[in-house]
């Protein structure tokens, strides 16, 4: 059996998971103060174990943050942090304005998303992606980051120079300078910087053929991507949207779909399922079929 990705989690949490013996690969672990642990896999969704106390929750959070709260305070103020293994941990709690900045002062619950490599998850679309700029869309938890990771690996293995702008440090999960996720040998990773600053920097300094980035958000992100596309770099990115139509309805993505990307892949549950691929021909989007 494949070694579970959660085995690298810190001891207090790993012990709880070992006691539960999950039958399949976990996608998400949710911990709430005073409640039992929720485990989500490809098919299972169960609550189990003893309730997690507030103190235990804080101990687990502290261990996940490598006992270094100060290192994640900016991320925490935005509601998440990323562990050294590339697991993104969403946090819910109480925020307060301190010196004009929004600061998280108490954690009530956490959603730990288990990062994984799924080699071959991009096989169905990789031939189409090779020469096109592509936007991958789906609701949260459908495997956008996992798919981007495999696309990066496959393009790099095919000989293309790839650069990843890993704003939340979860695509490549770099530790001590080395990617813990396989994103290919011809891949450079820039971490922790926003797209408006990072994308022009990468285009200028790393001269990539393909630029990969996760979760496009506002207008500034869209403008930075359009600029990179105009520089002749192929861009593969992801964004939250249930479908191409929903993406079109998002202001920041509309201009990208009109003037930038020429392919859209829609993902759905269970994670990693490519529901539909759309291609743009002569400015018109057409369904290119299910994969």
């Amino acid at each position: 059996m494949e070694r579970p990705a959660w085995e690298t989690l810190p001891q207090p949490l790993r012990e709880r998971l070992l006691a539960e013996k999950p039958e399949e690969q976990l996608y998400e672990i949710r911990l709430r103060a005073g409640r039992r642990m929720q485990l989500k896999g490809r098919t299972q969704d169960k609550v189990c174990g003893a309730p997690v106390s507030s103190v235990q929750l804080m101990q687990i959070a502290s261990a996940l943050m490598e006992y270094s709260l100060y290192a994640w305070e900016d991320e925490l103020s935005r509601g998440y942090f990323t562990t050294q293994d590339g697991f993104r941990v969403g946090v819910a709690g109480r925020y307060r304005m301190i010196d004009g900045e929004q600061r998280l002062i108490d954690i009530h619950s956490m959603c730990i998303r288990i990062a994984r490599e799924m080699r071959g998850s991009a096989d169905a679309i990789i031939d189409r992606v090779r020469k096109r700029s592509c936007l991958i869309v789906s609701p949260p938890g459908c495997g956008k980051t996992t798919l981007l990771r495999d696309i990066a690996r496959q393009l790099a293995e095919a000989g293309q120079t790839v650069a990843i702008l890993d704003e939340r440090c979860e695509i490549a999960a770099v530790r001590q300078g080395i990617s813990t996720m396989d994103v290919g040998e011809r891949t450079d990773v820039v971490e922790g910087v926003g797209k408006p600053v990072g994308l022009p920097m990468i285009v200028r300094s790393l001269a990539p053929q393909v630029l990969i980035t996760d979760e496009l958000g506002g207008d500034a992100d869209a403008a930075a991507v359009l600029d990179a596309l105009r520089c002749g770099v192929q861009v593969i990115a992801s964004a939250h949207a249930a479908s191409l139509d929903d993406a079109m309805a998002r202001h920041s993505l509309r201009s990208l779909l009109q003037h930038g990307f020429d392919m859209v892949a829609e993902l759905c549950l269970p994670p990693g399922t490519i529901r539909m691929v759309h291609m743009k021909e002569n400015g018109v989007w057409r369904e290119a079929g299910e994969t």
Partner: protein
Amino acid sequence: MKLLFVPIAMAALGLAGASLGHAYRQRARLLAQLVREISRLKEQIRLGYPLAAAMRQTRQPLLQEIEKNIAPQGIYAAWQQAASAERFAVLEESERQVLDRFWRELGLLDKHSQINRFEEALSSLKTLRDEATQKAAQQSRLYGALGILAGLSVGILLW
């Protein structure tokens, strides 16, 4: 025979006195090492590295030893483990209190507060180090002189 014994007694008791002063010098050296290592750690923390990575990057022996024991009990337990070594026995209670408070709060605060705690701990430790250095010099001289005098007294009594 007696003439030979006097310098031997003076040298032996002088050395005994110097070795009593040695504990004071050891304490001053340990405090100086702590000040040096914690200062280096502060610079890494300022850059935003998580504790384990920050400690590794300082390349300081004590911090590297503590870093190896951070998982699974946390930083404070790792410090306590390191501080249970015999060479830490020379520290006085006031010094232990400063260090305990510093390590207990390390990693649990936001960056601004964490850096403030570094400044406070370093300021206290530097004062304690200077006092210990001064005391070590005084005590070494005192015990050395007392040893020589004792040796001389023994020689006179035996004459």
